């Protein structure tokens, strides 16, 4: 098994006809993902390298059997596209788009929760289940199939850790980028729950960064509800308060959201936290081999 996406995923891509959408959509298909449709209003009936394009996501569900949507449209229109996906009948929406206003995401978040649709992102690299499917922009070559589940706020940092795991001979059940925005559809807790219930995941690596309190809440949740070992890495120890470090969510306000506070919260609940991505990967490998 794996989580969120697998060999049965039938993907519809909003924004497939755009430059980035075409590039990554075709890469996802080359990896083996069933990309069954693209959606661009007004371009229904066309195709992108054999992938049929529809006018709406709902049409792609009834006509092509899509069950997962990927959003690759520009930020200004992205929340409307996510809303369309939530209402379309797919059960998972993965939003890659960066820069969506948080006031747009707030109602969209609640809409997804109300309809019971799993939303990943926005501003995330997507989800990869090695050997099964890749939805998003994660470069698959750094990840082999295996027993470590990864959940991360950051893209390149995840590739870095994945590559170190691979070099140590270990692989992944899935890699989930939850995104670095203030409001994201799924939090660490949602993904930790999925890994806990996934028989093919033996250990979880969690990659956090400054801002918000998702890591602190995850620490409490791990102590209560996760039986599998969790190894963490947190970025941003040297970030000054009040400065946004790239991601819209990566900002320390007052005394909350610091890397130190997150590390302490996790360690207090028995989660080992690596000082660098390399050390986190090494701890993960060591822990996995001692299970």
């Amino acid at each position, binding site marked *: 098994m794996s989580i969120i996406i697998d060999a049965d995923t039938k993907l519809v891509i909003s924004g497939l006809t755009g430059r980035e959408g075409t590039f990554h959509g075709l890469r996802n298909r080359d990896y083996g993902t069933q990309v069954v449709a693209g959606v661009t209003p007004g371009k229904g009936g066309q195709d992108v390298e054999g992938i049929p394009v529809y006018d709406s996501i709902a049409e792609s569900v009834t006509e092509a059997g899509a069950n997962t949507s990927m959003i690759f449209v520009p930020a200004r229109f992205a929340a409307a596209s996510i809303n369309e996906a939530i209402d379309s009948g797919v059960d998972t929406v993965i939003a890659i788009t960066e820069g969506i*206003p*948080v006031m747009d995401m707030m109602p969209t978040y*609640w809409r997804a929760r109300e309809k019971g649709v799993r939303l990943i992102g926005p501003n995330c690299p997507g989800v990869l289940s090695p050997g099964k499917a890749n939805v998003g922009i994660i470069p698959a070559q750094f990840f082999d199939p295996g027993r470590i589940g990864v959940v991360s706020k950051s893209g*390149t940092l995840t590739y870095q850790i994945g*590559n170190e795991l691979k070099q140590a001979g270990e692989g992944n059940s899935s890699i989930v980028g939850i995104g670095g925005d203030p409001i994201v559809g799924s939090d660490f807790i949602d993904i930790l729950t999925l890994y806990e219930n996934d028989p093919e995941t033996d250990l979880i690596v969690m990659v956090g960064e400054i801002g918000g309190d998702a890591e602190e809440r995850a620490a409490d949740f791990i102590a209560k509800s996760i039986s599998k070992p969790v190894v963490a890495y947190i*970025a941003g120890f040297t970030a000054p308060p009040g*400065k946004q470090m790239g*991601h819209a969510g990566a900002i320390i306000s007052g005394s909350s959201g610091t890397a130190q506070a997150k590390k302490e919260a996790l360690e207090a609940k028995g989660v080992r936290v690596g000082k660098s991505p390399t050390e986190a990967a090494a701890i993960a490998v060591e822990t996995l081999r001692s299970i």
Partner: protein
Amino acid sequence: MDLLEYQGKELFARYGLPVPEGIHAATPEEAVAASEKLGYPVAVKAQVLIGGRGKAGGIKIATDKTEAHEHAGDIIGMDIVGPHGEGPFKVHELWVEVGSEIESEYYTSVILDRSEKKLLVMLSRMGGMDVEAIAESDPGALVKEHVDPIEGLAIEDARGIVARSGIPREVAEQVASVLVKLVEVARAEDATLIEVNPLIVNAAGEVILLDSKVTIDGNALYRHPELSELSDGVAEDPQEAMAKERGLTYVKLEGDIGVLGNGAGLCMSTLDVVAQAGGSPANFLDAGGGSKADAIVDALEVITSDEKVKAILFNIFGGITRCDEVAKGIIEATARIGLTMPIVVRLDGTNSEEGLALLDEAGIGNLHHESTMLGAAEKVVELAAAGRENSA
């Protein structure tokens, strides 16, 4: 983006919220002209993006022309340090406003609660001090309520918040109306934080917003052209201004090691590893996905325009980005700029071997490459220390 006090108040006024009349001034002469027009007493207030201005001497009351001139002269050019050591922030502009007779001071704010994914309204009958201090000294005095993410704040709910706060009945309706409008401002203007401290009742029994702290979501500025044109007090730093102009994600830090990485998370992690190796990063710079030659030239120019920088670390993990492209960019950029300071490069991921081969071929004397993040950090720390000794 953070708004200065007067910018926030101008925003409030557009929504019919009661703020004191005021005029912007940048010189003592302008401050006097403003004071004469408004009538005494006036408050002469430093416009900087930090709390604690009053304690720092950045807010003064003038009762006549001489005082207005004197206070404005004292405040302009002042360096204000925040209550938690932030800054210093140099004062370049003033807001001169009609003095208010304060009968009572309250606190109110509307913030984005990331944990709950809703707006949170806070109200306290104890104003004029930090919200942290209010929460500590009398937690019961701070009323908190989440706002329905679809419907906004209804006046009935606002009345409930006011009733629970213990604010006197005579002004309750005015305060409830303020809360409703502040939530409206947050939603319509994409404000992720609005803090009014103090919210006052004046001698005439009128509720007035005496201060403002507003943060606008940078991702939403495209739909608020009038806000995006405002001068951003934070970007006064020359490197940050230069980076902004070139569309780079750059944050200035205190140290002497220039850092360039790709991806926000990896870049933050690079700063941490440099610090662990005993160094002190000069900046955060996320070169992003592309990292072609032009982008690298831009980035290097911004980094090296900071005179403190003694050595530079490139930490690239190529995912979609190809390391050979990055290597070409580095080679071209160092040639174009004629950089002599030491550069440490760590390239990993897609096409890293090709990239490293290109760097070797180019034979740039001041360029070193390392295969691991930690190794690269240690090397750059060593080179920066040598640079410090040479310049000493």
